[in-house]
């Protein structure tokens, strides 16, 4: 029963599945993932490289390539059905109500156009606004993202800016239309470690200030601990655990989440830049039929039943959910290793 007092989530995703045709068959890159994002809320998606985080975010934006098959039982943005949306509807949403910051600041700006042209483009496309007003807004946002001499930057070209500056420009660009949802896909991995934290903090602060919902994809669990309202843990194309940051950090249920958090004690106490713990074992191939729990090849709680369908479990009253054959994520007689 949906609670009538709770507002509808801004974004609802149910059963999102992404298949990619590859040489030897079909790559089942993302398989039936569910999550919600409320207005003004920050959802962090964590998971190791190749788990399908970027594909998921591109699927939300409708930016997957033509060969890639995207299906979902339900995918709604503020009541707008994204699964059946035509190109025009998606175009109207993109860059206006939902926008995205990409992993690669060095190559995500068009080398042929000035920063000013690229910053104002979305605004001019979506709003009935004069060129001058758009440029004024661009200067305002460049100042907001901490770029000095903002007005003179408008005439510069991407090759004249450093990686950190380019990513600040990308952030400003994504904020031009004050989107309700911003998707940031590892916005700082390509940058110098010293400015990573700076840029992330800036992004999160601006998000709060503008009351934007944010999906932040990151490897940095320290950041997750500090900024996330909700956490989704992704493994080999599945969301193995979701819940409030508090639930996931303090009462991780899935063996994979536990493995990730092994070295992370508490939200707030985690050191900046702490990386995902390494878990031995190999990730299964997702080409061809995938069945059972994908983590079983690396799991320390593995039993025979892991080959069968894995149930969704809801341990508490809240949104906390995980997928495991074990009721509390532990083999009978097993012990929590922390």
């Amino acid at each position, binding site marked *: 029963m949906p609670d009538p007092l709770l507002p509808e989530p801004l974004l609802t995703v149910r059963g999102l599945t992404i298949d990619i045709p590859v040489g030897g068959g079909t790559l089942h890159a993302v398989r039936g993932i569910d999550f919600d994002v409320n207005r003004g809320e920050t959802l962090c998606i964590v998971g190791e490289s190749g788990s399908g985080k970027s594909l998921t975010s591109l699927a939300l934006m409708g930016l997957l390539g033509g060969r890639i098959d995207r299906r979902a039982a339900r995918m709604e943005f503020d009541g707008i059905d994204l699964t059946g949306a035509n190109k025009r509807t998606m175009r109207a949403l993109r860059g206006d109500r939902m926008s995205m910051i990409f992993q690669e600041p060095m190559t*995500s700006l068009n080398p*042929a156009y000035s920063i000013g042209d690229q910053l104002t483009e979305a605004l001019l496309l979506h709003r009935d606004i004069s060129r001058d007003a758009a440029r004024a807004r661009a200067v305002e946002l460049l100042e907001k993202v901490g770029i000095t001499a903002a007005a003179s930057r408008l005439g510069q070209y991407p090759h004249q800016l450093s990686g950190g500056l380019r990513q600040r420009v990308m952030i400003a660009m994504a904020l031009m239309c004050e989107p309700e949802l911003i998707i940031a896909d590892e916005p700082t991995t390509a940058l110098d470690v010293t400015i990573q934290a700076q840029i992330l903090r800036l992004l999160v602060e601006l998000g709060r200030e503008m009351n934007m919902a944010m999906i932040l994809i990151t490897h940095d669990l320290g950041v997750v601990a500090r900024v996330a309202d909700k956490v989704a843990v992704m493994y080999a194309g599945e969301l193995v655990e979701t819940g409030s940051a508090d639930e996931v950090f303090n009462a991780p249920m899935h063996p994979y989440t536990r493995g990730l958090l092994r070295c992370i004690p508490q939200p707030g106490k985690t050191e900046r830049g702490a990386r995902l713990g390494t878990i031995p074992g190999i990730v299964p191939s997702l080409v061809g039929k995938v069945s059972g729990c994908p983590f079983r090849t690396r799991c320390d709680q593995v039993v025979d039943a892991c080959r069968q369908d894995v149930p969704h479990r809801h341990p508490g009253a809240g949104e906390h959910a995980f997928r495991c054959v074990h009721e509390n994520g532990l083999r009978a007689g097993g012990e929590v290793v922390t």
Partner: protein
Amino acid sequence: MLQFILKRLGLALLVALTVSIISFSLLFLSGDPAAAIGGETATDQDIEAIRVLYGFDRPLPVQYWDWLSSALAGDLGESYYFKLPVATLIVDRLQITMLLGVCGITFALLTAVPLGVVAAIRPNSFIDRLALFLSVAGQAMPSFWFGLILIVVFAIQLGWLPPSGTASAAHFVMPTIVLGYYAMPAIMRLTRAGMLDVLSSDYIRTARAKGAPEGRVLFKHALRNAIIPVVSLAAVQMGFMLGGSIVVESIFALHGAGYLAWESIARNDLPTVQALILVFSLFYIIFTFLSDVLNAWLDPRMRAG
């Protein structure tokens, strides 16, 4: 940008100067020019008289300076064969060649660029295959053969177009196609490869993420970047077309500069050859300069270099 243009202009002048020296020395590389003018029946005294008459006895730098200043004033010497000033001789011929070259490159660009773009947007589609076929055929078919086929079909059998001459615009249709088709495959393939490359780049995804309509993504964001190498190639092709349209000019009996160059080489008419080489080289330098400027306008990264 202005600084870039001035720099390139300086470079172009330097190249032009070098070319002028080379084309000047050409006169002496191919033997004694006085003997060439005198012909086979000339005696030693005749040759000596010619040498003094034409000033070949003076020091080379003086001769070069003399030659260069008169060339700049439009005096390119006198043709050994026609006994006419070379300048008047080549002006008419150049007009024909330039007209043909401009038509040819325009035809090549107008067919190659749209084909390349569509082929890149829809790889493996019918258009892509057609483009590939046309480009392979264009490369496999020698110009003279293609030209003759066109003459047989459209001039002789169908009678739609005149087979040779320069009297009307219709006379230029087949030569334009043959010459343009020669340049088309390379331009088409470069456009296609460039578009494919650019379309998979991150900034195209950024443009789409802003909600830009597809046409804007393709033409404003992608084509502008993909066309940059095509501009340089087209400039080179244009240069080739002016100097190398000899085959086309002879098939269609267009008495252009290419044809004149070929004839003059056969006749040992050095002043004419020299002037043509100079003019062709200057055109080449001008096209390269223009394409550099156009590229710098298209790609801000080049403005610094």
